[in-house]
């Protein structure tokens, strides 16, 4: 009985030993490898079955045969591990040398939102001025006639005060109480100076309204007002700040030109032209000059008008209770829409306010 058992056991071991390696090595993928391994060394596998026979073996041989069986089990396990690694390596090698992932499929959970071009440009402009030491302020879009006109030194019958040009809210009210949709952000000069004492360095972006509606005029558009008031502020400082602004905004090499102009609330008043960023004729090369000659944006002049500016008119200081002999200051205003249009090549201002998602997702 026990001799038979020993014989059967030994034959079993010999059979496993003879075939396990070739069986495992023949497996080309992990799944079949695991199946073969289970057939040999799994809970119901051949080798496991043999090991279950151990207690039936005669005591004197049990130890020797047991050692032999365990050695075989280790060998199977090692062979399995080796083949597993080999398969994994083969898979990896196949992938590394195989076809490429289709990386052109879209990304998942894309967040495709954007800031409106006006907002983007406005924040960019504000960043330049805040880095120069200016604070950002804001105020109401509906304001008193006196903040919009009178205190800025507009004569009572200035064309801008006319119903033709501005939107009034309660035109029938007395002059003092009359209100309107502000026609410029210059109201913020009056408001801020009435609120606090110098030194004062502010920029005020926001919506303004005028009674125009065509390809280049929108009844609502965005301006940014700037104001610096302190003792000893001069036109040279005005030039310094606005030149720095233009260069940070449009490039270090962009030429900046100041020329006289007129706004009721500044004196001396001026306008700032910067080199056209569309044709960059200012680069001066033959190609640049050829671009300028063809440029429809600057009408071949090489310059674009982007800012109005000037020294704060003493009458404005007097109207807000500042000492006009002690303090000087400068103010400037620019059209945010215009800069956005230049930057993004927008030819019709109305595109900015239609909020067409096809437009908004273009830029």
């Amino acid at each position, binding site marked *: 009985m026990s001799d038979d058992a020993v014989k059967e056991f030994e034959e079993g071991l010999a059979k496993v030993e003879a075939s396990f390696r070739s069986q495992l090595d023949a497996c080309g993928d992990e799944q079949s490898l695991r199946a073969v391994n289970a057939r040999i060394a799994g809970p119901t596998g051949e080798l496991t079955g043999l090991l279950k026979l151990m207690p039936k073996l005669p005591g004197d041989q049990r130890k020797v045969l047991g050692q032999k069986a365990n050695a075989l089990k280790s060998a199977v396990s090692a062979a399995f591990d080796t083949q597993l690694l080999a398969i994994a390596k083969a898979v990896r090698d196949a992938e590394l040398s195989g076809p490429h992932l289709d990386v052109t499929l879209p990304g998942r959970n894309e967040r495709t*939102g954007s800031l*409106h071009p006006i907002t983007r440009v406005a924040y960019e402009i504000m960043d330049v001025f805040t880095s120069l030491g200016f604070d*950002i302020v804001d105020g109401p879009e509906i304001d008193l006639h006196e903040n919009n006109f009178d205190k800025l030194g507009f004569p009572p019958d200035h064309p801008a005060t006319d119903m033709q040009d501005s939107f*009034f*809210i309660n035109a029938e009210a007395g002059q003092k109480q009359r209100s309107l949709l502000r026609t410029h952000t210059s109201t913020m000069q009056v408001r801020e100076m009435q609120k606090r004492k110098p030194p004062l360095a502010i920029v005020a972006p926001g919506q303004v309204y005028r009674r125009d509606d065509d390809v280049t005029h929108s009844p609502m558009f965005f301006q940014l007002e700037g104001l610096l008031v302190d003792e000893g502020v*001069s036109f040279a400082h005005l030039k310094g700040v606005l030149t720095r602004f233009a260069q940070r905004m449009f490039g270090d090499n962009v030429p900046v030109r100041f020329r006289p102009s*007129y706004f009721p609330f500044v004196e001396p008043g001026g306008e700032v032209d910067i080199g056209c960023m569309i044709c960059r004729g200012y680069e001066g090369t033959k190609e640049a000059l050829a671009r300028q000659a063809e440029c429809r944006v600057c009408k071949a002049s090489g310059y674009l008008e982007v800012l109005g500016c000037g020294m704060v008119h003493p009458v404005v200081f007097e109207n807000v209770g500042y000492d006009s002999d002690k303090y000087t200051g400068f103010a400037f205003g620019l059209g945010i829409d215009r800069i956005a249009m230049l930057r993004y090549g927008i030819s019709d201002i109305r595109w900015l306010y239609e909020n067409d*998602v*096809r437009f908004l997702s273009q830029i």
Partner: protein
Amino acid sequence: MLASYNWLRELTGSDLSADEMAEKLTGLGLAVDAVTAFGTGLENVVIAEVRSKAPHPSKDKLTVVEVFDGTDAHTVVCGASNVPEPGGLVVLARVGASLPGGLAIAERALGGVTSRGMLCAEDEIGVGSDHDGIIVLTREDTTAKLGTPVATALSLSDSVFDIALTPNRPDCLGHLGLARELSAVMKSTGVRTTLTESFSIATVQRASGEFDAGGATFGIAIESSERCPRYAGAVVRGVTIERSPFAVRYRLHVLGVRAINNIVDATNLAVFEWGYPTHAFDLDKVRGQHIVVRVAREGETLTTLDGVRRSLQGDDVVICDGEGPVAIAGVMGGQSSEITGATRNVFIECAYFDPRSVRRTARRLGMHTDASHRFERGVDPGAVPSVLHRVAGLITSNAGGTTVKEALDVVAGKLTETKLTLRSSRIDTVLGTKVPLKEVGEILNALGFKTTPTVEGFNVSVPSWRPDVLREVDLIEEVARVRGYDKIPTEVPHVRASATGTANSIRFVRRLREQASAAGLFEAVNYGFVSMTDLSNARVSTDAVRITNPLSEDRSVMRTSLLPGLASALRRALRHQAGHAALFEVAHVFVRNAGAALPDEHVMLGILLGGARPAWLGQAGEYDFFDAKGALASVLAQWRHGVGRDGLTQGAPIVAHLHPKRCANIVLFGSVVGTIGELHPDVVSAMELVGRPIYAEMHVGELRAAIEKGDIAKARALPKFPSATRDLAVVVQEDIMASQVADTIRNASDGLIEDVQVFDVYRGENIPQHHKSLAFHIVYRDSNATLTDEKVDRAHKHVTERVSAQLSASLRS
């Protein structure tokens, strides 16, 4: 303002090129927007003489003309009726010429006669608007040899500057003013002007006067001396009304003015020279031979030169003759006393009218004329006698006749001279650079200011043509302007920091916008005004601020909500097959504020989602409430720490624009900061939308206040012991919210529950009607020890019992 380069060159004696001159003008603040060249493209168009003319053998109305161009004779067939007799000068376009209008001249057979060239009319070579006949010249028009190119012979070559003149510079509405500016900047000898004074002007400082108008007495009376401080008149007798000489017509043509007749052309020329509008009346039609300047009487009417009958009001100033109004002061003359072909004697008016008065009348009548444009801005009251001399001189040289030797100048009002003090130190402060006093004086003198040196600088008298110079700083601008702004240094100041800095509210709005766009929303910018219908369709407040003078009813009230604007953007997207839109806007809404001067303005954040939700490859259904809630959570992500995932929306708001059963308050740190929900189906259809768009609106100020009120989250140590997760699925009635169940679960354990997350909602088989099954992952953790299974099971059992009991929930396995 259009200005002729040739004219300015004559006045200044300058040898600048047109482009150089344009640059100088721009540098002075007289911005030249465009330069247009005249008299170009006229090669092969020459002066020729008529040798003979004969009717065309077969064609009526055509004439066969032989002309000689100094070298060759040419036979030309001409359709004009004014071909001059032999010896007359004409303009010949020779074969090979290419005219400005694009017409190429070639040999042409006309009824058997070969025409070699063309005799030109004014409009054909761009020198005028006349097309009634060909150009016929005299030796007064040109002394050039036959065959001379027409551009040379008639001095056609000119450049016209289109100057964007600022309203403060009426003195530059004439060439003399521009020439004065150029002379100052070029430091040249001044303006070359010729003024012949062939008669005398008696100036009287009272309200009325008379003068001998050549046999008859003519009276001038000013009844409204504030509106018309000065009125002068002169009489020219024996004029012959004709076309003006070519040179006059051409000069007016390049300046965009149509030549009319030699009298009107003379006054127009004076306008462009002096910037001063005058008016010529047919003297014989001035009834009663006197002029009265007064305000109109209610009900008076006048038919103006343009043939329109105008009703006048008590605020209008009129020029009257013995019987009634004959002109609207400073705006337009009347038809009754108009210069006609029969006019023999002319009364010339040169007056100063109050700018504001002219402006009001012109505006009221909707008449913007060359005259009103100049009077509104302020002509030079000191120039009245000179202008009168000049106009009379131009008329007599143009139209013959003689000026009656006496003229009258009635000064009824005050003409004040502005005197200013200019401190040298102030110039340096304002400009930030030292300007030598000598240079200051030279600049001011060149511009016509009279200066007297003082210890500090100058006492300055302002010339009468500069109504804009009223203060010291205006003089500083003159100095800066003429020196050139490029002479001022460029210096970046040290900006002193303010006490306040940029307000948190402003920085917050920026972060909000940036978060919203990062959350996948597109920013919209809508007009602040909408229509009342927009507001009522959107079911938002219609108690809106009204605009008195809107451009249209569509934009007549200020928005009370951002919904109408965002909805129109969504509508646009859906109509244009964009398929969907996920938008936000941060902007003001306006709330009426009875009793206050100004309405309240609130900054709002609006979010609108609608249409198909973009999916990763393929469709993923329509946007729903939870897309909007997710977007909202993303927008607020950096501020909503500590607010559980389910804590953002609570309770149902009472707002008319949202679906009553599919909406919520937005709650942050215990404060309601806005509302979110599907749009009410009635709103969807009223606003012509489709599907179930979801709209959220928040009051940004309240949102920020809530965030500032909330505690700043504090970091906690990460857990040391492992957690255990159990799931719980319960069947509850529909109206029990997931957050209610989660709260019940949380409250049921003694601090062992770390997190509760809903992971499934199920309705359908095995679930009773009006019920739903909610499934939760419950994470248990003891912060001081490793949990045993027993302890977790006990806690979970307790939770299960509490949920069943408190929410009448049944367990679902």
